[in-house]
Structures are given as structure tokens and as C-alpha cells.
């Protein structure tokens, strides 16, 4: 029998009559039947008590103590609820009685050691009971001690509070506390969430409104350099876990009033803050509305990671390809917002999301825009070359060595044959062995401490690479191919885009093994067809290649000069497509410096 059963039985059981009532009742019965009824009732009560006692006796002593403690807490909680009910006829509304509030809080969230309940009096001479509630660790102690309690305890004009209890909170708000942001709340359901978020509650006896002081001060990481999206010349700021910091970093880049942050709270347990950000007058309202509707339609018990929302933000969540771009770089999110995209910030997730994202978005980096367009274009081309090498080189090796060797030049065939002499495995097993080793090294390098991982990665690669060749398990050519593959598949600047290629790699390998080069072509066509079929928020994922849009091609495989980016991407269907107007260049007049120099030269002569 569990705790709940014991508790229910005790609750269901009728309360025994109090002693006074019992005495009166004993005097009252006049008929025999009533006496019999009482007797039966007494016997029943005794039986129940006996059963309960029997259960209790079977339990451990500590459990018994806990049971008593729980019962007492429950009793006090009930008493607090009763007081609220008597005053406001609602369990969800503060009754204005500090004692009741204290009892209620003490017996609910106050059981937790991180919740601080502080009873004190407002004023020196005349005093009004008050209660302060805060979350230890999430609230700023200095703001609570010096800017709240200290000032309230030394408040002189307590009489005004007593005379106007209905507006006491307003007086305190206006004249006493020196906290920048303070609001008022009456509902317990909201008050409890506020205090869990780091706010401080001030209950004033007699006042039905509760002051909610913004004393939030999270323990947070500093703004550090991006680790997954490094840039050579770009800004070196990345988000941390605090949503406010994320908003600040974006706001610093878009200072105009058009930048809109719309808050949401998700997660029945976590009450995680979510921010939907967009630039008004730029972003397509239909996309903004769709994002908000999709998020609102999602019910989650707990929002631990932002990625939990990506499924609802993707039209094809089962697709291998990510349709929501995550970025830890504030500059990238600000740039996306300025282009007309919608950003979603999630508290405790140091990566912001932007939608709608296209395939090309995952191959654009900060460095593409901080250097010249030659530099940016070259980098992008290298990325795609890396992708093609990474995706196709091992499959081509398997296809050309096993299935279609007649397609290779003879001299190369002889060279490969020489390198494969004595290798007991077919090429596909070579690929499987080497790629498994690479994946193991990669996984180990991620999990190990940084210093160790670099050493292990280098040493592991060299030692394992040399050893497997010497042991004639794989050919030396395979080492070259797999190294290029490993590097090529990670040229994607966004980590989440590397995963689909790592998975599709196997798909292409198997196709190459069964169908040779024909299979590779089939697989690549299949991948491109899948990419072309994806859509998110009615935006084609393969834009601007499919459907072809010449205007947007300027920022795709190569990056055109900035002067070519006069309009925002067409696929976003922005409210205001114009983002840049070039000035008419007029010939520069002779700078005065030249004439002055000439005069000086003339003087010298």
C-alpha cells in the first residue's frame, strides 16, 4: 500500500467528532435507535482506526515521521487555502493576508531550500507586516537587501499605507523601492512562475496586489568567442544561455524600433521563455504568423533544448536535411532578421534559430561577407568542392575499382592495382573500416577534454593510418581518399549540415557498390530531387536553384559584390524588398591638398 492510498483512506474517512460535540451528542439522543446508530458509527470508527494503526505499525519509523510531517503540511496548506477562500472566494487569488500567504508559500514552494521567505515589517515606528519571497541564486541579493528590504524597513510614511491599503502597492512602487522594473500581480499561478524566474515578490498586509520586482540575475556564461562557427575577420561574439543576453546582442545590431521581440512561454514544467523575433516592415507577416501559430500549437511538458521546437518549425521534420538554421553567432541572426527571416530564441539554448532557411543558408558564413567578394566566392566554391569530394570520392573509388574499372585510365589502374596487392578485403570493406575509424576518432575527439582530444586525434590518425596500411588491411590510396572525405564532408560551416552528408555518404557508397557509377549518378539525382521537393513555410528549400531565380543566384555558389545586393532574397517575399541603393558616383573635385602641394613645389622651384 503506497503513500497515496494511506493518505486517501485517511482523507475519505469521516472525521471523528470533537470531544465537545460528542458530549452534547451523548446528551442529545433520546431514542434507542439513535443510540444504536451512534454505537455502530463508533465501532466503525474504531475498526478503521485499528486498520490504520495496523498499517502504520507495519511501516518504518522514518516513514511514519514523514507521514506525520506531510499531514501537518497538508493541514497548514488547507488552512491557508481556507483563509484565501474566506476572503476572495478564489484559491488562485491573493487574499491580502500576509500570514495566509506565508503559510501557503511555506507549505508549497517554501519546502524547497532555494526559495527564501522573509517576513518583515514596513516602517520604523508604525509597522505593517510584509512578506518577501525570492529564489536564492537567481535573484540579485544586493537589489533585494539594499534596494528593497532596507528601504521598506525605513519607510516613514506608513500611515499612508494603512489609510490606503488598496493602493499600498502603488505607494511602495512609486516612493520606496528603487528597482527599475516592477509590476503588480494577484494570481498565485503567475506569482509562483515569477518567483521561479528570479523575480522577487513583496506581499503587503491588507493590500490585495503583490509587487513583482525584477531582480533577476542569472548565473550566466560570459559572451565568448563562437566555437562552432569561427570567423577570421568577423565579430567574435556568440550567444550564451540567457535569453536576455541573446536579445541584447541582437538589439545592439538592430537598434531600430522595427525589431520586434514577441515573448512566449512554453513547457508546462519548465515555463521556458521563447522569443519570436522579426523586423517589422521587412519580414513577411504570413511567415511570422505561421511561426507563432506553430509554436502555440505545440504542447510540451519541458523545453530543455531549442531543437525540440525544430520539428514544429519544419514542414518535413523527418527529412535528413535541417530546415531550421541554428547559429550561435549574433551577427548571423541579425543579418537573417534584416533579410526578412524570423528568429526564435529559446532560454537556456545558446543557439538561435532562423526560419525559413534554405540549403544555401547552411553554406554561408560570416567570412563570406567580411572579405572581398573574390574571397567570399572562393571560400564558397571550396566548400562545395569539398562537399563533392567528400561525398563522391569513396563511392567513385568503390565503383571504379570494383564495378567499372574500364572507365579508369590504364596507368591509374596499374597504380591502384599495385597499391591493392595483398589487401584481403574488397574496396567497400576498406571504406567501411576506414570510415568507422574516422567516426570513432571524431566522436572521441568531441567527448574528450580539449587538450587531450587534439593529441588523440592527431596521434590516433597517424598511428591508426600507418598501422592499417602496414597491416595490409587497407591500401595507402584509401588513406588519402578517406582523409579527403573526412575533411570534405566537414567543410559545411554549419555542423548540422554535416550530418546529412555523413548519412547520405553510406547511401551513395551502397549505390556505388551495387550499381557502379550509374548508381552514384542515380543516388545524386535522388538527393537533388529530394532537396528540390522540400519546402518550409512555402519557401523552396533549394532556392535559388530550384526554382531558378537569377536574382538570388548572386549570393549562392559565389558571392557577388555588395552593390549587386540591391534587393532582399525573392524567396522570402519580404514586405520591403529593397535593402540597398547605390549612390550616383560623381567625379571627385580636385582635392585642395594637391593644389597646395603644387604651390609648395612651385615655391621650392
Amino acid at each position, binding site marked *: 500500500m503506497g503513500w497515496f492510498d494511506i493518505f486517501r483512506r485517511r482523507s475519505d474517512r469521516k472525521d471523528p467528532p470533537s470531544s465537545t460535540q460528542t458530549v452534547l451528542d451523548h446528551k442529545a439522543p433520546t431514542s434507542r435507535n439513535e443510540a444504536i446508530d451512534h454505537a455502530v458509527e463508533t465501532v466503525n470508527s474504531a475498526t478503521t482506526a485499528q486498520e490504520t494503526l495496523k498499517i502504520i505499525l507495519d511501516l518504518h519509523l522514518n516513514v511514519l515521521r514523514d507521514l506525520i510531517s506531510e499531514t501537518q503540511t497538508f493541514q497548514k496548506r488547507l488552512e491557508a487555502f481556507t483563509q484565501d477562500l474566506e476572503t476572495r472566494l478564489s484559491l488562485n487569488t491573493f487574499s491580502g493576508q500576509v500570514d495566509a500567504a506565508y503559510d501557503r508559500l511555506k507549505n508549497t514552494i517554501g519546502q524547497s531550500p532555494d526559495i527564501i521567505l522573509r517576513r518583515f515589517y514596513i516602517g520604523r515606528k508604525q509597522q505593517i507586516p510584509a512578506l518577501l519571497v525570492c529564489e536564492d541564486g537567481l535573484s540579485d541579493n544586493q537589489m533585494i537587501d539594499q534596494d528593497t528590504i532596507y528601504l521598506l524597513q525605513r519607510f516613514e510614511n506608513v500611515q499612508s499605507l494603512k489609510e490606503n491599503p488598496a493602493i499600498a502597492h502603488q505607494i511602495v512602487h512609486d516612493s520606496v523601492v528603487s528597482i527599475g522594473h516592477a509590476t503588480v500581480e494577484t494570481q498565485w499561478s503567475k506569482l509562483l512562475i515569477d518567483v521561479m524566474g528570479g523575480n522577487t515578490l513583496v506581499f503587503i498586509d491588507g493590500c490585495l496586489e503583490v509587487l513583482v520586482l525584477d531582480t533577476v540575475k542569472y548565473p550566466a556564461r560570459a559572451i565568448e568567442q563562437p566555437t562552432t562557427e569561427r570567423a577570421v575577420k568577423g565579430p567574435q561574439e556568440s550567444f550564451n544561455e540567457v535569453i536576455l543576453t541573446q536579445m541584447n546582442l541582437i538589439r545592439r545590431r538592430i537598434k531600430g524600433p522595427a525589431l520586434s521581440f514577441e515573448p512566449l512561454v512554453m513547457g508546462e514544467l519548465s515555463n521556458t521563455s521563447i522569443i519570436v523575433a522579426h523586423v517589422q516592415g521587412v519580414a513577411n507577416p504570413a511567415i511570422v504568423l505561421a511561426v507563432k501559430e506553430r509554436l502555440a500549437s505545440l504542447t510540451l511538458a519541458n523545453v530543455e533544448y531549442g531543437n525540440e521546437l525544430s520539428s514544429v518549425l519544419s514542414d518535413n521534420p523527418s527529412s535528413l536535411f535541417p530546415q531550421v538554421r541554428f547559429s550561435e553567432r549574433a551577427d548571423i541572426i541579425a543579418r537573417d532578421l534584416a533579410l526578412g527571416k524570423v528568429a526564435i530564441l529559446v532560454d537556456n539554448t545558446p543557439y538561435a534559430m532562423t526560419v525559413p532557411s534554405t540549403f544555401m543558408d547552411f553554406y554561408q558564413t560570416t567570412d563570406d561577407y567580411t572579405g572581398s567578394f573574390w574571397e567570399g566566392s572562393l571560400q564558397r566554391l571550396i566548400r562545395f568542392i569539398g562537399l563533392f569530394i567528400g561525398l563522391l570520392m569513396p563511392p567513385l573509388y568503390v565503383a571504379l*575499382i*570494383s*564495378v567499372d*574499372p*574500364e572507365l*579508369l585510365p*590504364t*596507368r*591509374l*589502374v*596499374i*597504380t*591502384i*592495382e*599495385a597499391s*591493392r*596487392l595483398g*589487401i584481403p578485403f*574488397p*574496396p567497400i570493406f576498406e571504406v567501411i573500416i576506414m570510415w568507422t575509424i574516422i567516426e570513432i576518432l571524431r566522436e572521441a575527439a568531441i567527448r574528450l577534454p580539449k587538450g587531450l582530444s587534439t593529441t588523440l586525434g592527431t596521434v590516433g590518425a597517424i598511428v591508426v593510418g600507418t598501422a592499417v596500411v602496414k597491416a595490409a588491411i587497407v591500401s595507402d590510396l584509401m588513406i588519402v581518399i578517406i582523409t579527403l572525405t573526412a575533411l570534405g564532408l566537414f567543410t559545411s560551416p554549419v555542423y548540422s549540415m554535416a550530418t546529412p552528408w555523413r548519412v547520405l555518404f553510406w547511401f551513395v557508397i551502397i549505390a556505388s*557498390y*551495387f*550499381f*557502379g557509377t550509374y*548508381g552514384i549518378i542515380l543516388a545524386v539525382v535522388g538527393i537533388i530531387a529530394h532537396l528540390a521537393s522540400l519546402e518550409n513555410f512555402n519557401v523552396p528549400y533549394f532556392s535559388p536553384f530550384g526554382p531558378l531565380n537569377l536574382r538570388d543566384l548572386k549570393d549562392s555558389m559565389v558571392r557577388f559584390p555588395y552593390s549587386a545586393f540591391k534587393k532582399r532574397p525573392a524567396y522570402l517575399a519580404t514586405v520591403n524588398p529593397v535593402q540597398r541603393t547605390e549612390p550616383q558616383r560623381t567625379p571627385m573635385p580636385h582635392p585642395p591638398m594637391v593644389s597646395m602641394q603644387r604651390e609648395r613645389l612651385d615655391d621650392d622651384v
Partner: protein
Amino acid sequence: MTTSNLLIRITLMMGLTLSLSACWDNRPINDRMLVLSMGFDPAHKAHQYQVTFQAPTPSATASSDAGGGSSGSSGMEVFDVKGTGPDLAATFSQAQAQVSKDLFLGQLILLAISTKLPPGELASIMNSLTRIGTLDKTPFVIATNQSATQVLEHTSPQARFPCFYFLTLFSCPTCQTDSLGVRLWQFLSREATPGVDAFLPVVSTAPQGFTTDTVALYRKYRYVTTLSPKETQIFGILEGISHKANFYFPRWQADIRAVSGGSHLSTAVIHGKVHATINLRLTATLASIGSVTEDAQELSMVAQAASKRITDDARRLIKKTQALDVDPLGIGRMLSWQHPRSYAQYLPWHQEYPKVDVTVHCTVTINKMGDIK
């Protein structure tokens, strides 16, 4: 469509695709015997021929730098397996029985054909070769007046495997006196096209390797003749494949080299007779001359002499081919392109070809005096 139906269709499609794939017989290249050269010789029995399949030995492969020259090692570089039979399949089976690996013809580089091979057998060989799926019809074809096997077994210090010698030679058209390399598809194309006959470079063994300065003329797979080196040089000029032809003129003690240029063939039918005109516009380099300070007049005279000699030699060569009833220049083919209706009246072409009036115009320009090309 229900899910089960969809699954059935997908499974069926995958099954069909897999059954059509070549995965069941795919094999790593080191488990195949890469036949690099094939030689075809007549057999002792009638209507049969001998085929030599030549592949590099594993030890040679392991120590090979493939494209480099001969290592000079004393070990065997290549080994031959031979088969004799009335068709290629029979010879292939015999050869396959002698090796442990799969005989793979997809990397064939060289086909050596003995000029003694009867036309029926050669036609049969070519017909069989076109039906090998992995063979891409790009191997070079050579003819030899010796035994094809003998040529294949001959080594050159310039290449580790004999076939690589010819691969290097024929892959660089400007490296040869005349670009004589003929790929299988070119040979087959000439044999199949009416109005033109095939030719093949003739290879003979030499102490330091091979000599390739003559061509063998074929008519419908029948070997007709082998042109002399001098005739081959003129043939190269007429075909427009000459790059390093040279002529000596004792009168001026002048030597011109790198004679090359375009050849333009045109045909006409005048009064029922076929006329062919070959215009040669050639350039040449003056390699040496008796007078150290040659003048323009002297050069012009050399050029005129060169033009005359090439014209005369060309006429002689064409007369010879007409006498042999073989049309390697493709005059009939040109007639069929330019005057298809007239060409139809002259079938069979080989009866008409000896009667064709052929005119050769040649202009030699010596414009790079003394430059070494």
C-alpha cells in the same frame, strides 16, 4: 495507394533494380587479370586463329611506376596466355582456363594483328570485339608483318610494358612523323563506311624497341599492301596527319623538315567521270641549306621544288592505290557526301576508283627559317 501497396511496389522496384545490377559479378581490380594487349595470328589449321592475351605479372605491377620507363629489372614483366580456335570466345575460354583470375578486357590498350590473318578471321575477330561490353573500342590497333605475338613479347627500354610504348606513342599525335595511331573504332568505322578503306600502322621490332614508319592498307578486312616509309610520309601528308615529314634537295643541299598542313579533298563528276582534287597547303621549316645566307629567291625555289616533289610523289602513290584498287584517302566517301546521287551510280566503288582522275595541288611555304620545332 495504401501503405502496404506502396511498400510492395518499393520492394519490387528495389528487387528488380538489384537483379539488373552488376553487383553480383563485381570484383576488385586486383582480383582480375588486366589484359593490356591482344595479338591475333593465323593458326595452323584453316579457319582458326591464335589469340595472345598479354597481362602484367603481379610482381611487375607491384614494382611498377606505370607511366615511367623500363626499370631494367631482369624479371618477367608480362606474361602471355594463348588460345586457338575458330572464334574469339573459344580462344578466350582456353586462355581463361590457364589463369587463376578473371580475364578482364576492359583495360585493353593494344590490338596487334598479323597481316597474314585471312580476311574472314579478321572480320570475325572485329565482330566479336565489338560485342564485348566492357571494351570501349578505344584500344589502338597495329598491324605487323611479323607474328603479332612476337611483337607483343618484344620489349622496349622506353616502357615497362610493350603496350605502354604504343600508348605513349599514339597518344601524342605531334610526337610522330605521321600521326598513324588508329583506334579500334576508327578502323571499324572505315571498314563499315562505303567509299573508304582502312589503314593500320605497321610495327616491326627493332633492337632498341619498335619501328613504326609504314602503314598497311586494308580493303574489307583483307590486307592489301604495306606502303614504304617514303610512301607513308606522302600518305600522311595527303591525309593531313603529317607532323614531322622531311625532304632533302641535293641541288641546294637544303633540308626542310616539319612538313605539315591541311589537306582538302573535293570531288566532281564531269561528263560522267569522277574527278578528285586534293589541295595541300603545307608549311615547312628550313633545317639546313648549302648557302649560309639564303635569300628569298632561293627559298622560293626550294619551296617550289618541295611542292613539285610532294605533288609527284602523291600522284605516284595515288596511282599505286588505284592499281591496287584500295581507296585509303576516302575519295569515294567524299563523293558520296558531295554527290550522293552520282556516287550511287558508281557502285561498287572499287570498280570505279581506278578510273578516277585525281589532281593534286600542293603549295609549300617555308616560313620558319631555321627554327627548330
